């Protein structure tokens, strides 16, 4: 038979233990990439991995600083961010509109979905020449490349979101005499928002994955351009700077989207 005294003290101690564990986990999260970098540094400097192909992190950082101070990097980042944002918006907005229409009008859905399903698996890389023919070599074609790959997850998730709205909410709307417009604005849009935002999140990830492909044609700047021209010229430090930038922006964007999610669906 166990017997413990002083209930509040016991729980306080328990709670403190948990707090320590929580803090430990936060430390692990910070420690993990740092330790990885340290191992990389060690392996690269000691020659256990080929430093020509995997330059040590310190060398990459110094290249990063060089590029930064020369101002070149800012220009590349700016232009790529513009392309990503523009492409993202150009993919997301029609995605939401068409997705809502697909969710709301069954005949439209049946008409459009086979086309969407057929186009979805086609790799962006393979579409570059066609995009180039239609949109030329300017900014438009880069933005379209990104938009095209963002579009599919958004349209599919938006339609799925509308369809997945619990039928009881449709009954509520009908019972309280919602007009078509009210139904779309008050039921379909908010009801599909959580699933739609998952699609947008996926679209954001894909936008980043596509930037290198988008900047393979007719570009003179951008992070994707930096990555592949650096690699073509075997400037691996510069290439790694580009990769790290992509990864960094991936992190920033996912934070932004999570913030947006909290703002847009406070009721979750």
């Amino acid at each position: 038979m166990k017997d413990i005294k002083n209930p509040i003290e016991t729980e306080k101690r328990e709670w403190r233990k948990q707090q320590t564990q929580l803090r430990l986990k936060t430390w692990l999260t910070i420690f993990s990439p740092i330790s990885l970098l340290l191992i990389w540094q060690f392996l690269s400097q000691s020659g256990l991995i080929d430093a020509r192909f995997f330059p040590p992190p310190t060398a990459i950082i110094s290249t990063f600083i060089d590029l930064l101070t020369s101002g070149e990097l800012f220009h590349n980042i700016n232009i790529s961010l513009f392309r990503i944002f523009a492409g993202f918006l150009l993919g997301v907005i029609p995605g939401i509109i068409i997705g809502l229409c697909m969710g709301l009008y069954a005949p439209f859905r049946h008409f459009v979905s086979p086309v969407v399903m057929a186009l979805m698996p086609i790799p962006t890389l393979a579409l570059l020449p066609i995009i180039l023919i239609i949109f030329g070599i300017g900014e438009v074609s880069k933005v379209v490349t990104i938009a095209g790959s963002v579009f599919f997850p958004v349209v599919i998730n938006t339609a799925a979101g509308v369809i997945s709205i619990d039928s009881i909410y449709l009954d509520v709307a009908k019972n309280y005499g919602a007009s078509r417009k009210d139904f779309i604005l008050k039921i379909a849009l908010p009801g599909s928002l959580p699933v739609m935002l998952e699609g947008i999140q996926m679209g954001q990830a894909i936008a980043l994955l596509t930037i290198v492909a988008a900047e393979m044609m007719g570009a003179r700047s951008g992070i994707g351009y930096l990555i592949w021209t650096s690699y073509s010229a075997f400037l691996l430090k510069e290439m790694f700077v580009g990769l790290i930038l992509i990864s960094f922006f991936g992190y920033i964007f996912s934070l932004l989207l999570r913030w947006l999610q909290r703002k847009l669906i406070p009721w979750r």
Partner: protein
Amino acid sequence: TEEEESVKVNDEVSIDNPSGDLAPLSKKTTVIIAEDGSASGAGFYIANEKGYFDDYNIEVEFVTFANSDDMLPALASGDVDIAGGISSASFFNAIAQGIDVKIIADKGHNEIEKSYFTFVIGADKQGEIKDYSDLKGKKVAVSTEHAVDDYIFHQMLEHSGLTEEDVEFVLMPDFGNMMAAIENGSIDAALQIEPLITQGVSEGIHVRFGDATDFAPEAQIAMVLGSPQFMKDEQDVSLRFMAAYLKGVRDYNDAFKKGEDKDKIIDIMTQYTALKDASVWEDVFVTGLDPNGKMFIDDIRNQYEMYEKNGAISGEFNFDEAIDTTITEKAVKIIGEYE
């Protein structure tokens, strides 16, 4: 033909003009040049930096493509006016499909014993591979199929007495990938290009293996291509463009062959290409660029015939129509032969 004559070309020469020859265009005109970031665009870069285009009131804009095949649709649609490309089946196929692109001037050939586009072997393979015939049973990376790379590869095979079956052809569209593949032993040799050759040598990844001029002394590697509209309808511009380009090429030759003003030229090259280290430029075997824009047209024809023989050409067309050097020749006449 009649049509060509109907285009009025202002080709009066006056020493008072800013260029010392042709008059500047009355309206500022933008010429868009497609590049793949290679050093063979030196003529464009130098002409731009030295103001030769400015003299004619031409503004140039560079756009970069991953490779020269991607440029064809842009060239055909008139999105770009000038491209630097290699001869390839795709180029001839495009023409056969009605994409009327012209080959107009030299943009790269190997200098004897100083090839910028040649074979390298892994640094650790030097004992094993001493002669071309030692490539028997080896893996050799080539960046394209049915293009000049392939052609040079076949010239090498013929020279060494090997057949296609003797050597394993590895298609590797990226020159950077070849460095990685040689380093990890995936391939034994590669048809590599400058400045990656020099870089790889200095980093101990590969070594030069003979020289491409051993077996293909007169191979036309890269060419300046013109869009149909640019060559036909805008001869005022194209003539001036070519004149400026050739001036740039001549400065380049002055620098790398005669050592005149070399620092300035290398400075320009570091600005425009990915190779930012000026000292490495002293070591690279630079692209040969003919100061008069002359090409090895017979060699281009040989290449075409090889692609056709290998079944890579679909459709019919007249080879001679693909080549149009009249503007180049006219430009040379105006600015004079190079000595």
